[in-house]
């Protein structure tokens, strides 16, 4: 997998967890790295809008955005292609 897999804390470490085994994929936004280039919002228009200043905005969510299974590929692309490497994908049970 090309996506950066983070064993996030508080949530079960996820690297090895298989998709579709009840695990929930979550897209994490590192705001300290993000500078609002907007690529992720183009790859994931169903998930992310742009706020007043161009930063990704997921309605109802902050830094950790649940990713539906059908958007997993696009989310993986967004992680790989983010020019600021500000995104990470992990799974939580």
């Amino acid at each position, binding site marked *: 997998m090309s996506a950066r897999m983070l064993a996030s804390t508080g949530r079960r470490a996820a690297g090895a967890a298989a998709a579709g085994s009840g695990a929930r994929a979550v897209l994490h936004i590192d*705001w300290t790295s993000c500078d609002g280039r907007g690529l992720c919002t183009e790859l994931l228009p169903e998930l992310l809008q742009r706020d007043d200043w161009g*930063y990704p905005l997921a309605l109802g969510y902050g830094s950790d955005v649940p990713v539906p299974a059908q958007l997993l590929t696009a989310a993986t692309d967004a992680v790989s292609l983010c020019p600021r490497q500000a995104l990470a994908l992990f799974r939580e049970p």
Partner: protein
Amino acid sequence: MTTASSAAAQAISAPAFSARRSRAAEHVPAPLGTARLTRAPGPDLARHLTEFGVLPSAPVSGTLLETVRAAGLEGRGGAGFPAWRKLAAVSTGSANGRFGSRRPVVIGNAAEGEPLSVKDATLLGTAPHLVIDGLLTVAAAVNAAEVYLYAPAALLPIVAYALAERTDADGVAVRACAESFISGEASAVVNALAGRPALPADRSIRLTTSGLGRRPTLLHNIETLAHIALIVRFGADWFRALGTETDPGTRLVTMSRGLWAGGVSAGVSAGATGSMPAVAPGAAPAGATATVLEVIGGSRIDELLRFGGIDPAAVQAVLVGGYHGAWLPASALHTGLDRVSLAPFGVGPGAGILLALETGRCPLTLAASIADYLAGQSARQCGPCVNGLPAMAAVLSRLAAGERHPGLPGEVARLAALVTGRGSCHHPDGTARFVLSTLTVFAADVDAHLHGTCAKVHA
């Protein structure tokens, strides 16, 4: 001070604790009454030992965890999480071998960037040995490799003096803290101790898993540590003898009034506290006066105001929790200063900050100044915070200044919702909480401003 790691390791593995066990704390009776942290009449070691007895040998990690858990001690730094949880996270990781051979780092956090809070400075100035006792207890329990006390530069002489009075504290490395609003945020503390700018970091991994030097890092507010120092002496039941079921024990409170818009960034000031009631009057440039009190958990806020010399009848609202907190209107001042009682207001006791807003002064003017100050305290790392906080403060300022556009309150609320949860630390969340609470609690004042009928004093 020698290098932190080697000195700390040496001190902690040395049998300093067990050597003193013969003079156990049982010889000193457990303190009665509300004066616990504020009990000793002076900061020196002799008086500390007279009041509290010697520090018992440190319990092993699991025992300390269970004792602190039984005591129900909540962290006193602001977030209010149960103190045992961090201990558990470090202990669990060590037991799992998850951290390999990495021994933890323990940090006593005395960075108090909130302008309305002086309780940690007061505690460190008047009872440094309780703080050091707690720090050494936790460090020994988790077999820490490094121990830090992170404190304001102005207090370092008193800390250095206290450390030099003891024979068991060679391993404590003292570091001057940054002096910004967010300086006490845990990841900002870790960054500062690592020699980086004292700014929050993106948190995808908990500090208790990997923090300073990638070691599991346990960071406690110094008041939390001081309570631990007493809990290991006198027990969980003693701790719970005061307070409520959900907010046991005592807590330090900084109470202030008379803060005017122009004095927001200066906050309040206070001198040293003495005996109970620990009253520390001081004067900020804007004339705000602060009092530090040790109070029983769950005490009614109106009673605390009276205790601190403030007439609740002359108060239109109280800001609970500081600049990241929420307002309680005059009609709700009978509420207890505990997490459960305060939950309906969207705030907790936090670091024990109470700001009384006197009747007749415009709350919107003060709130706009606070929002403006908070916008300026952004670490300028996260886009929604960098952009959203100044925008939100600007709209609130227009409302406070008397602009009568009916869309202003809605725009403030929209921006507050937009920044919430979208930063690496909770600065945008806390700022939004404060601003939304202002709009809600002072809805009548908002209305008066929109109709040009606010008759309160604007300053």
